[in-house]
């Protein structure tokens, strides 16, 4: 009886895990959001064998001189299929790729653009170099064969912050930080579209594995000051106005407050993870699991400050 139950459960789990008929087709459908400007919107889920890591937003701008790509996606396959999707929209060549930051879902498609200059901030390039191998392994662990053949291809060029004109589009390359040590935001002055990378999330809880909350908040202020017409967040829907910036700021401030208060009240990590979420975040996709992850990433520093802030107890060994 037990063996049969086990077999049935395993079979069920495997059938759920196996990708549907068309093998490893991300079904990328570019969506036009402004003149010359197309985006590929990923789901607001965690990486699974069902979605193959397509949980991220990528974009491309078709200029007179060729196509500018912003982020290459979570796998070699995604990069290849993205490039094929671009070719269905335009016969212009891809002339440049930007990686907004070094997280795996944003740059592991670089292999598909091996013949194109790929540029990123210096900190991003360093991150791609140092963590890329582990990221690719982990992508394979989570997404399975969607990620087979994926290897980290490190961006070859440093992004120089400032204006860059390509085929009549004046791009503002803005070097920021906080989500990671290097976060590139790109504002297209021609269309008013802001490609915010993972500095902005909307209706999907922000991730913090390499975050500095205080720096991230400063970067959000800088983005808000741009007054972009439309924003493509790293995760979540394209939107007009500043909803993404505000929601991300709201989440980060709540996270900071919660961790600080918990440390001041003497809570341990696993206890903090169980704290209730505020109502406004309860239904946000992945809020609970990202909060748990953020406690792991960030709480140690808050805790140390709380222990350190009391001078007397720190005693020498006899």
């Amino acid at each position, binding site marked *: 009886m037990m063996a049969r*139950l*086990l077999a049935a*459960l*395993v079979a069920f*789990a*495997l059938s759920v895990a196996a990708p549907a008929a068309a093998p490893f087709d991300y079904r990328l459908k570019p969506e036009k959001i402004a003149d010359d400007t197309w985006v590929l919107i990923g789901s607001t889920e965690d990486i699974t064998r069902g979605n193959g890591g397509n949980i991220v937003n990528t974009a491309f701008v078709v200029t007179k001189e060729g196509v500018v790509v912003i982020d290459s996606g979570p796998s070699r396959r995604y990069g290849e299929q993205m490039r094929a999707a671009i070719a269905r929209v335009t016969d212009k060549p891809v002339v440049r790729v930007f990686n907004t930051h070094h997280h795996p879902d944003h740059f592991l498609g670089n292999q598909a653009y091996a013949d194109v200059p790929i540029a990123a901030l210096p900190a991003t390039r360093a991150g791609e170099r140092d963590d890329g191998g582990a990221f690719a392994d*982990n992508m394979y*662990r989570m997404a399975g064969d969607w990620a087979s053949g994926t290897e980290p291809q490190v961006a070859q060029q440093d992004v120089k912050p400032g204006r860059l004109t390509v085929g009549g589009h004046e791009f503002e390359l803005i070097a920021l930080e906080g989500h990671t040590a290097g976060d590139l935001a790109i504002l297209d002055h021609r269309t008013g579209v802001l490609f915010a990378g993972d500095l902005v999330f909307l209706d999907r809880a922000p991730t913090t*594995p390499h975050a500095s909350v205080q720096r991230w908040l400063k970067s959000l202020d800088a983005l808000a000051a741009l007054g972009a017409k439309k924003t493509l967040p790293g995760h979540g829907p394209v939107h007009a106005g500043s909803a993404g910036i505000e929601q991300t700021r709201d989440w980060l401030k709540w996270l900071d407050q919660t961790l600080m208060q918990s440390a001041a*009240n*003497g*809570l*341990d*990590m*696993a*206890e903090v*993870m*169980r704290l209730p979420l505020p109502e406004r975040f309860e239904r946000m996709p992945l809020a609970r*699991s990202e909060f*748990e*992850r953020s*406690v*792991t*990433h960030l709480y*140690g520093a808050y*805790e*140390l400050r*709380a*222990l*350190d802030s*009391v001078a*007397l*107890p*720190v*005693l*020498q*060994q*006899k």
Partner: protein
Amino acid sequence: MKKVIAALGLALALAGTVQAADADPLNSSRWPDLQREYLNDAPVAFDPRIEVLAPKVAEDSMNVPVTVRLKGLPDVKRVLVIADFNPIVKVLDFQPLLAQPGLSFRIKLQQASPIRALVQTGDGNWLAGGVWVDAAGGGCTAPSTGRSAPDWAQKLNQVQGRVWRDGQNQRVRLRIMHPMDTGLAPGIPAFFIEQLAIVDDKGDAMLKLETFEPLSENPVFSFDLPDTGAVALRVVGRDNNGNRIDAKVQP
């Protein structure tokens, strides 16, 4: 596959209410051996009053936070914490004495595993609770990170601590500087804190525990004790090389 196992554990946990008291609700293949090894095959009742809080997924396999919470369980003498699939299974063996029987700490987790609290009450009976944690791996065989810092040896066994008193109870949080090497990383012998106690001003133990290699580097603990007023608590212990821990935590 780990997810499958975890899902299976859940399914069986739900089914567990109608099964014999000693069937493992976490359905771990290691359990029968562990029961023999650590409890001499004594019968174990899985009890919902024993809660093990831990993240579903170990985001950092070097620091997996665990809280053992025991609600309304009288006369707890011992809390033995084990992780079934760790290369070193035993995490700690806690005698609460005057303290509340729950505690918090962090562990290294090598792979997906149940983390269990095995609880012995005054009548000698064993009760248990636990939870599956999924892990990316590498927690136990990676070398400790602090050894690369030049001053780690000077800081060895230093204690940081703080007490939160509310008149009835006091929470004590401690961080002890120690590499907690498992002996599984190539070329680095096992080096870990073995014994720890909190004693009152007369030197009587208020709680005691034996600790083992899977505890995280620079281990952090939380304990809950009766409020003893404005009396400093003393933290004493030693590691497996005989280095002593002795510090006072001011209220």
